[in-house]
């Protein structure tokens, strides 16, 4: 909801007294950009040599189109050029800085894949350039899966675009290419990743996302995130937009510290595994009362309560 409204979440967090240290080291940014620049230099000469191997691009000449050159290009114009190019292209080609769109919860969002590669047979591959290293054929699994999810979003957007243009969406391959530095060097290594699983998950999640306008319509009037408002009013507005805090939020959302503060005393704040192990009981108070037997469990809590009492008895017996 806040994202849809274009609210400046870091500023909002600061304003209501829960600032959060977010940021990326300039060293990491410099290396990521340096690696990408190195690959794309001389019309992608280096990138092409790696892609030739994994994708079997065997034509000597591969056209290269950079769609991100114009500084004054609006997002819409760049997207238009991407459409035009994809509608026309038939030969082996690399498309740099394409711009795709995807409908998320009833709103159109713009996406920027690193590169799209065409193969001779007309298959399109999403190429994702990342700066984490592949050492001895292995990379950090969390980073690889994040990259796979990201690439899956691009594949989906590309497929929808092709369908709109009247092409077969299956032309976009579910095999994406991940290009990373190899071992401890800056030598690129390309790996093909099958993102079918991520695609299925993504499609399901997108259909389940409630439309933002429906959500907004359900809000009480007077809810506003105007930074000029006093913090107390902003907090009241935030309460109207219910958040389901989980510790994972801390690494992804600027408002997580606020939500963590709000959900103190809830079992979810201790992490999903803890909440599940406590039988899904909402608050820590309830848990302890159920464990002590001073609270009558609701029908669905009976089983959890018995387990909690047994656990409390065991801990008390031993300690």
């Amino acid at each position, binding site marked *: 909801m806040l994202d849809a409204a274009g609210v400046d979440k870091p500023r909002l967090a600061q304003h209501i007294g829960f600032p959060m240290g977010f940021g990326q080291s300039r060293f990491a940014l410099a290396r990521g950009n340096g*690696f990408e620049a190195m690959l794309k230099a001389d019309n992608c000469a280096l990138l092409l040599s790696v892609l030739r191997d994994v994708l079997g691009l065997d034509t000597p000449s591969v056209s290269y189109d950079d769609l991100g050159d114009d500084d004054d290009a609006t997002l819409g114009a760049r997207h238009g050029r991407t459409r035009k190019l994809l509608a026309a292209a038939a030969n082996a080609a690399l498309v740099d800085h394409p711009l795709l769109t995807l409908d998320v919860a009833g709103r159109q969002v713009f996406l920027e894949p690193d590169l799209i590669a065409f193969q001779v047979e007309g298959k399109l591959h999403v190429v994702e350039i990342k700066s984490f290293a592949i050492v001895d054929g292995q990379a950090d699994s969390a980073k690889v899966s994040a990259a796979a999810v990201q690439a899956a979003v691009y594949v989906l957007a590309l497929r929808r675009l092709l369908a709109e243009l009247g092409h077969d969406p299956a032309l976009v391959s579910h095999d994406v290419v991940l290009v990373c530095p190899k071992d401890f060097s800056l*030598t690129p290594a390309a790996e093909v990743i099958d993102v079918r699983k991520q695609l299925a998950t993504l499609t399901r999640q997108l259909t389940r996302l409630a439309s933002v306008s429906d959500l907004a319509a359900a809000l009480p009037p007077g809810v506003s995130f105007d930074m000029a408002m006093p913090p107390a009013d902003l907090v009241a507005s935030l309460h109207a937009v219910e958040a389901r805090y989980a510790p994972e939020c801390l690494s992804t959302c600027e408002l997580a510290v606020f939500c963590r503060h709000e959900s103190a005393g809830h079992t979810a704040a201790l992490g999903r595994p803890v909440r599940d192990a406590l039988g899904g009981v909402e608050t820590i108070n309830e848990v302890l009362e159920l464990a002590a037997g001073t609270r009558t469990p609701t029908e669905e809590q009976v089983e959890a309560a018995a387990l909690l009492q047994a656990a409390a008895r065991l801990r008390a017996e031993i300690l």
Partner: protein
Amino acid sequence: MSTLTALARAQAFAEARAQPLATVRHLHLHERPLILIPYAMAGEANAPLAAMVGTDRDNPRLLVVAQPRNRDDRFAFAAELAAILIGYVDSFAGQTEAVAVDRGRDVRYRFTDAPQLWVPNPGGVDFLKLFGRSTRFRSTEGEYAVPASVPLLGRWLTFFAASAEMAGSSLLLNGVQALSSHWATGQSGAEDAQLAALMGWLDPPPGMTVFEAAAAAEDPSVAPPAGPATDPSFDNHVLAPLLSSAAPSLVALSDVLRGQLLPTWNLMWRALDLLRTLPVAARVAGRWDSDRDAYSAFVQHLEEGGPPQPRRDGAVAAAARLSRLENAATRYAVQRAFDDPLVMAEYRLSGAAFAGEVTLAKADRIDDTGKRPVLRPRIMVVTSEPVGVAAGAVLTSPSRPSQKAKVISVTRLDASAASKSEVLLELSGGMGRKMVAEPGSVPEVGERLLLTTLNEAYRPGGAFPEPDQTPWTHGGPPVPFSVSDLPDASLPDPSTPDPSTPDPSTPDPSTPDPSLQDSDQ
């Protein structure tokens, strides 16, 4: 996460105090551990930035890489670290003791002590593993020669990182995992992963509540990260200006990095103090024996001029290692439960163990249905706990680990929820060799007894073919090792083509540095 641990977290939150998850310490705590806190350069693949290292709490050594993207500086750092770490590791290769093997027919020797490394968190272990990988194949000859201690350091680090994967090993430990397996906090596991926040709960500064202490620990200017990742704002505002000059001032760098590392250094020693307050578990010594075996074997391997650990294990070696890891994990889980009633409680809650009172005992029962009569006493145990075993199951009791108790029958005494069960058991083993049980070897009426499906029985390792017999389904026999096969033994280090490395603090990071484009070898 078990319900018992989850409940401990809920209690910790409500009482604003960490709660015990163990009544004894399940790891070996060395008298002279080496603490190592590595810091890595953001964005680079395993480029060290600094390390604080040492065995003396009052005298940490700070190693700093003047220019993390310069290959010579990096290997100078590796050589310095090697001098400290190898000196420490070698200091235990002195006194040996004889160990009988093969039922006393043979004898082998192992060192009476072994080294113990501590890093702050699992990330530190990963860093050492990768740093070991990046140094152990380095050549000590030719154009890109490194000091001889560098590949040796790599081999030791690889040894330690591999042993850290073995459950119950105490050769390389990390603070976060060691603490959080013994205490539960009232915050989430994600927050516990920060050593400072975890210690805020376990040992808050005087006058502070755990909530205040944990909140203070989240401010990187008060509690800098425990590494290997640095604080981005430290990178951007402190480190980048210092590294932007052609020859960064080592003194200035050391000053700011000491400021970042020293808080974690002190936390690590406080963490060890805290762990020392727990009495050691009974089976820790046995596992430390295995660690000393592993250390002794590796020292011998090095002395005999054995090759460095391969980049990837071959099929047979990988399968054998996996089997060893699985056996170690099972053994560790059982030993923890046998040593610690609080860990055993997890199994009692799930029905894999129960405690009860002996109501009947026939210690002199003889089973003479077989070829020759055998001593098979029977006992009846009454328990109010859930019994998750059926007739035929074989149970053991931590108080008599060598005795087996076979379940003959389980009878529920009444149907209500808080019902009791009667379990009839037949005992064998652990009663001496005579037809009359040794005194005390059969539980007596009135004794409180704990029985579990867990057992400490020896698990033989799997049978694997010799590496040269690797079946074709697993890639066939591996190619014999040769140094010239190694990908980077004699190659230059391509990440740093020449001393004119890109300025890490390019004012606008979106401007590509042209010198990077030529770095592909």
